[in-house]
């Protein structure tokens, strides 16, 4: 059983804030394949195309037949725990601060023997375990041995909390509470145990509207003025709550239909860019440094940044052409943000949803994403500690086509989908 996480005590401002240390993050190029899969929540190992031998650690030639055709393939992760050890000593600063730390040696049914972090509910060897890949605080994949049947509180495991960004007891900023999606995100976070949810609304002088009023009535929720088109508004809010926010969820967006020829001028495209791209930039410049400074601040330290992008960011969808372009720009900037936040141990999670069931996707046929399911996928991404999420059937299908052949997808999208 995992001891449920207790609500952390109020921080004593006189005590030292724990300084950042990351677990060892160096990996060879081949080994990054494990990280690439784990960043989307999958456990993959190299499998030889010629003889099917499963390989680990990652390598350049098959250990059985020397073939160079090693492809990353999903693994069940089932295996036998051969031995365990508890580290009482480590030369590594990250682990020194977190001792004792339990590790296991697991013989995968697929063949290889792997070293893994042990979930607290895994007993002593010999026993059966399930290996999964997770990103650690350095943003690199590590293997974790899980019990076959975990308890309800297994997400509260001390080791797992070091890897994931579970919103439980954390303080979250949701940048736009006016949309149905924003409100669904706030409700999902409250349900997931978030301590405080600050909810941005761009025009605080206007009547909030029924949805926002309902949200504001929740005891965890505080409405805050936030206009991402206005640098001063972002700066002021960061000055007020920047030092307390653990998770930023940037869901503010402007979405208009049409591409180039259907509308004269650049006003609409500028409005999209001003929120979808420059809004992210303003937000990252103000809140990024504050998050970075608190990433090791106890068990509820700053941990993650979530961007609402779009599957159209991968390849332009001409009926939503300018919106696609703004999301592609945001995607590129989010990669930059991720590179800058990773050394501080802050995970940047990008969501690439297909069409959401809102007014701006009126013309899109089903299946469309409900606000509730998209909100649920955000909470799941935080709990699982992944980096890239493609929620919904449309996003999954487009992603598959894009990975298969981006040029073919471009032609298909030009022809209407």
């Amino acid at each position, binding site marked *: 059983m995992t001891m449920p996480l207790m609500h952390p005590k109020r921080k004593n401002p006189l005590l030292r804030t724990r300084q950042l240390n990351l*677990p*060892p*993050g*160096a*990996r*060879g190029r*081949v*080994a990054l394949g494990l990280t690439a899969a784990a960043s989307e929540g999958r456990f993959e190992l190299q499998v030889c195309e010629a003889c099917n031998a499963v390989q*680990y*650690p*990652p390598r350049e030639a098959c*250990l059985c037949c020397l073939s160079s055709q090693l492809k990353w393939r999903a693994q069940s992760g089932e295996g036998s725990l*051969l*031995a*365990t*050890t*508890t*580290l*009482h*000593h*480590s*030369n*590594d600063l*990250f*682990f020194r601060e977190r001792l004792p*730390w339990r*590790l*296991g*040696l697991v*013989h995968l049914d697929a063949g290889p*023997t*792997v*070293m*893994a*972090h042990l979930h607290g509910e895994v007993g002593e*060897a*010999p026993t059966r375990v399930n290996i999964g890949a997770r990103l*650690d605080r*350095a943003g*690199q994949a*590590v293997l974790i041995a899980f019990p076959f049947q975990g308890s309800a509180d297994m997400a509260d495991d001390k080791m797992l909390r070091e890897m994931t960004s579970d919103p439980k007891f954390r303080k979250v900023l949701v940048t736009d509470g006016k949309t149905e999606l924003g409100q669904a995100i706030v409700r999902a976070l409250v349900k997931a145990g978030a301590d405080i949810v600050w909810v941005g609304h761009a025009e605080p002088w206007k009547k909030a509207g029924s949805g926002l009023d309902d949200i504001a009535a929740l005891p965890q929720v505080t409405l805050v003025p936030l206009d991402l088109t206005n640098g001063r508004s972002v700066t002021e809010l960061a000055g007020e709550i920047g030092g307390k926010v653990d998770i930023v969820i940037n869901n503010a967006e402007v979405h208009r239909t049409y591409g180039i020829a259907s509308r004269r001028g650049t006003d609409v495209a500028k409005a999209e860019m001003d929120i979808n791209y420059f809004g992210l930039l303003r937000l990252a410049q103000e809140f990024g440094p504050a998050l970075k400074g608190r990433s090791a601040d106890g068990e509820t330290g700053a941990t993650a940044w979530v961007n609402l992008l779009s599957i159209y960011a991968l390849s332009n969808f001409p009926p939503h052409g300018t919106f696609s372009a703004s999301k592609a720009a945001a995607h590129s900037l989010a990669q930059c943000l991720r590179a800058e936040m990773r050394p501080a141990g802050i995970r940047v999670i990008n969501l690439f949803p297909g069409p959401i069931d809102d007014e701006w996707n009126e013309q899109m046929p089903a299946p469309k994403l409900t606000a509730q399911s998209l909100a649920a996928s955000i909470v799941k991404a935080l709990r699982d500690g992944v980096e890239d999420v493609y929620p919904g059937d449309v996003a999954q299908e487009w992603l598959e086509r894009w990975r298969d052949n981006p040029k073919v997808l471009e032609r298909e999208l030009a022809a209407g989908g």
Partner: protein
Amino acid sequence: MARPRHSYEGVAVAVPVTVPYVRYSTHGAHWFLGQAVAALVEGAGITKDQIDGLCVSSFSLAPDTAVGVTQHLGLSPRWLDHIPTGGASGVMALRRAARAVQAGDADIVACVGADTNHVDSFRQTLGAFSNFARDATYPYGAGGPNSIFAFITANYMRTYGATRADFGRIAVSQRDNALKNPNALFKKPLALAEYMAAKPISDPIHLFDCVMPCAGAEAFLVMSEERARDLGLAHVVVRAGIERHNAYAQDPVMVRGGWLADRDELYAQAGIAPADIDFVQTYDDYPVIVMMQFEDLGFCAKGEGPAFVRSHTLTHDGSFPNNTSGGQLSCGQAGAAAGFLGMTEGIRQLTDQAGEHTVPGAQLGLVAGFGMVTYDRCLCTGAIILGRST
């Protein structure tokens, strides 16, 4: 049937050199290499120009390799080898040098294992030790081989019923030997109770199961017996030698080493049986590996290691002398020199230079090597049987 291997007949090993160990040093690896070669030259009564073969093992030499050492030390050998294989490098150096001497490719080969140790160099070595370690063990916080050998030890204990006290007997006996070796860094006696009460490092590995990294060098010369006689050098002969790499890769966790694959050939080449051996110098990075060597080198059956150590005394004057210098558990682990420690000690024992820790009347000694934990086990194994020169 494999082709029969040539014997090591006519090869002499002489001038065991130890550059005194220190916990930390501000010198580079080249300093220890230089000191070792100087001691070899002085001990042999030759000029440095007479060394025409050089074999180097070192972890802290980078970015230099053995060839850089030739320029650094002003040597001009006609045979050169660099063997970055740590704990197996002493055995491997001797096997290679012996063949060079037999073939006439070199006349006098200097074999040197040397490393320095700065205050943070151990941690830095670990992080960059191998590709597999960087990708698949170092990120898990073990910061070195401790956790790997904790797994191997835990699995061995569960499978064969070994207890911590069994491993303690090995460590305690080695400390007794070390107290008679002026070069050992550990000067205080170790009682079994103290071993048992030591702080845990990575269960079931505790403090006295681990070696202490230090700086130092070990070296010896390889030449023809004829040459050794001409120079008037006390020397030993090579009765047999084996090595094996990445053995039993299919075992999900290490329960046996590559010695097992080649030991029959080892004893056949020497024309002896394990019972004829007067002392062993096992590779003792962790006591469990010492116990495995007792089994895999044929002194007892697999799984009988615990009973074997309970029924023998392992000190230099005991019924089964093991690591008579104190081994690296009590001398310190001077990087790659640890792979040479058993060899220099074996030469000393068989040339009456072992002082207070002499094995009385020893005629035959076995020196084993074990090196390079690149992922979940040590890959290199080797063994040499040395004999007293007649």
